[in-house]
């Protein structure tokens, strides 16, 4: 009973994982119905048809393949055979590029909207209409105008991550406490010092919340975008392995996408803690 909550929670997590893996193994180890068939034909069919083996890989298969991937993450055997490390690196690079552009647009524009009731009202209808559009709906338009699949994927990331940052920045700036602005006025801080030394730090936690939501959405969207544009990236890898009928690789990719998403989110959370303040 003296064990700490963290330790008990960790043990429970491990137990749940173990139970899931055992169930998984059990579910795929049985054999299904088989048919008698011509031996020549049976050669063409896989083990699923001839021995009733499940097509779904078990945890051991996935683990073995994952180990293989992790041992050689960066090999490059041509367009259709690259290591997952390379594929993930392509995806991360696209996400960060689109995200950076979104940041450069959203934060200054959000500042303007937050500080000016005129711009807030004038831009509101555009934001309300553009915000709910699925980022992938922009893809054909992007491909047609930009005429580059890689840049189009980056544009899709830009368009999906710009809204949460824009809206949160505007909200954070508009809701800076009146008292602090009054202090800035009575201390004659001037426009720029007020913006950078009062409004920005006051709104920073809200802005970071928007940035954290944005990076999450961007990572969700990149997989779908890369399935469409193809060529490189973890989204393309998933689709390619599906075409190869390698469910093992698909599961591995899913796992890796989750892990990378978690790391991105944790990085933003750390940044958020850095700028947060308690009153």
């Amino acid at each position, binding site marked *: 009973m003296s064990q700490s909550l963290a330790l008990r929670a960790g043990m429970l997590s491990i137990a749940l994982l173990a139970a899931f893996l055992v169930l998984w193994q059990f579910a795929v180890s049985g054999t299904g119905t088989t048919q008698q068939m011509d031996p020549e034909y049976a050669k063409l069919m896989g083990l699923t048809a001839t021995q009733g083996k499940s097509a779904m890989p078990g945890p051991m298969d996935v683990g073995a393949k994952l180990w293989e991937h992790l041992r050689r993450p960066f090999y490059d055997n041509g367009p259709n055979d690259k290591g997952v490390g390379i594929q993930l690196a392509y995806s991360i690079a696209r996400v960060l590029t689109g995200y950076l552009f979104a940041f450069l647009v959203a934060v200054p524009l959000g500042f303007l909207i937050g500080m000016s009731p005129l711009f807030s009202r004038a831009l509101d209808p555009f934001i309300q209409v553009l915000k709910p559009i699925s980022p992938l709906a922009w893809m054909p338009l992007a491909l047609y105008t930009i005429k580059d699949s890689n840049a189009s994927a980056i544009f899709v990331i830009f368009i999906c991550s710009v809204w949460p940052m824009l809206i949160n920045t505007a909200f954070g700036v508009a809701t800076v*406490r009146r*008292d*602090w602005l*009054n*202090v800035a*006025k*009575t*201390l*004659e*801080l*001037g426009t720029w*010092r007020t913006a950078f*030394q*009062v409004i920005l*730090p*006051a709104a*920073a936690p809200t802005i970071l919340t928007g940035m954290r939501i944005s990076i999450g959405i961007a990572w969700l969207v990149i997989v779908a975008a890369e399935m469409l544009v193809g060529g490189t990236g973890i989204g393309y890898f998933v689709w390619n392995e599906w075409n190869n009928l390698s469910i093992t690789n698909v599961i591995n990719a899913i796992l890796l996408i989750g892990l990378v998403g978690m790391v991105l989110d944790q990085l933003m959370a750390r940044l958020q803690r850095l*700028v947060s*303040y*308690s*009153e």
Partner: protein
Amino acid sequence: MSPRPLIRIEGLARRFPEPSGKSTLTVFEDVWFTVDPGEFVCIIGHSGCGKSTILNILAGLDRPSEGTVIVGEQAIDGPSLDRAVIFQSHALMPWLSASRNIELGISSRHRNWSSERVRAHAQKYLSLVHLDGSENKKPAQLSGGMRQRVGIARALAVEPKILLMDEPFSALDALTRGALQDEVLAIRRATEQTIFMITHDIDEAMLLADRIVLMTNGPKARIAEIVENTLPKDRQRTDLHKYPNYYPLRNHLLEFLVTRSKELAGGVGAGDPRAPVIIRPVASASTAAETAIGTSTQSSAPYRSRPAPTRVIAHANGSAVTPGADTALKRISRPT
């Protein structure tokens, strides 16, 4: 002859448009009074009489609908480092340390100072409010009283001509409030800082203020009278109730807040709003009879006929700029 006033508030009024948009709501109007250099003036009135609005106008954070505020020789136009504000809710930046909060104003006042000089100046004012050792703490790590001390240091550090205090101690517990009042009293005696302060607390006003401006209830609030503090200049908080003028002064203020602020609300002012009635409540032992100093033209004002503690009433005559400067003296006898 009093010195030339540092602040002249002339015919100030603030009106807000009604939600319907057709008429306007007058919070206060025809407010005239002055503050001399080195003087400590308190303003007392119920919520809604517009005293915070008057302070905000003085600070330059709000604009009057009518009238002007003249500081020195100039009508004010917006906020200035010469008029520092101590806010009710301390209004410290929570992401900055105590020292950095104070440095913000100093570096704005002295743009060419090095950061070491700014920090040393901030340290000086932190010491003044007895916060040595807390310079690197964030406001969240400080107690309510300590935060307000930082707020006081921030205001004083820009060396303003006028200190404006908006109920600075109302959010503090009684013990902390007392300690901070003593602090303000000591700083004020040392620096002769001109201070204008809003308060709800009669004892606070009696301890700190030289003159106490009483406002009638809003809407259409105005100055009912200005009470001179008749307690000795070197008064101490612990001895306050021992002074002979303590009860006459306190009863007069209390009675005003309890009944007369309501009775006088919304009505037309008794007399010239440019020269509010000046009251000097003193103990009967020192004057033997109820006396009034004034021009007697407004001595029949209704509130003066009620039984009241004995006092001397001084009434300003005519001059809008320096009320009380040329008052004539006249004794009237009153029934007890």
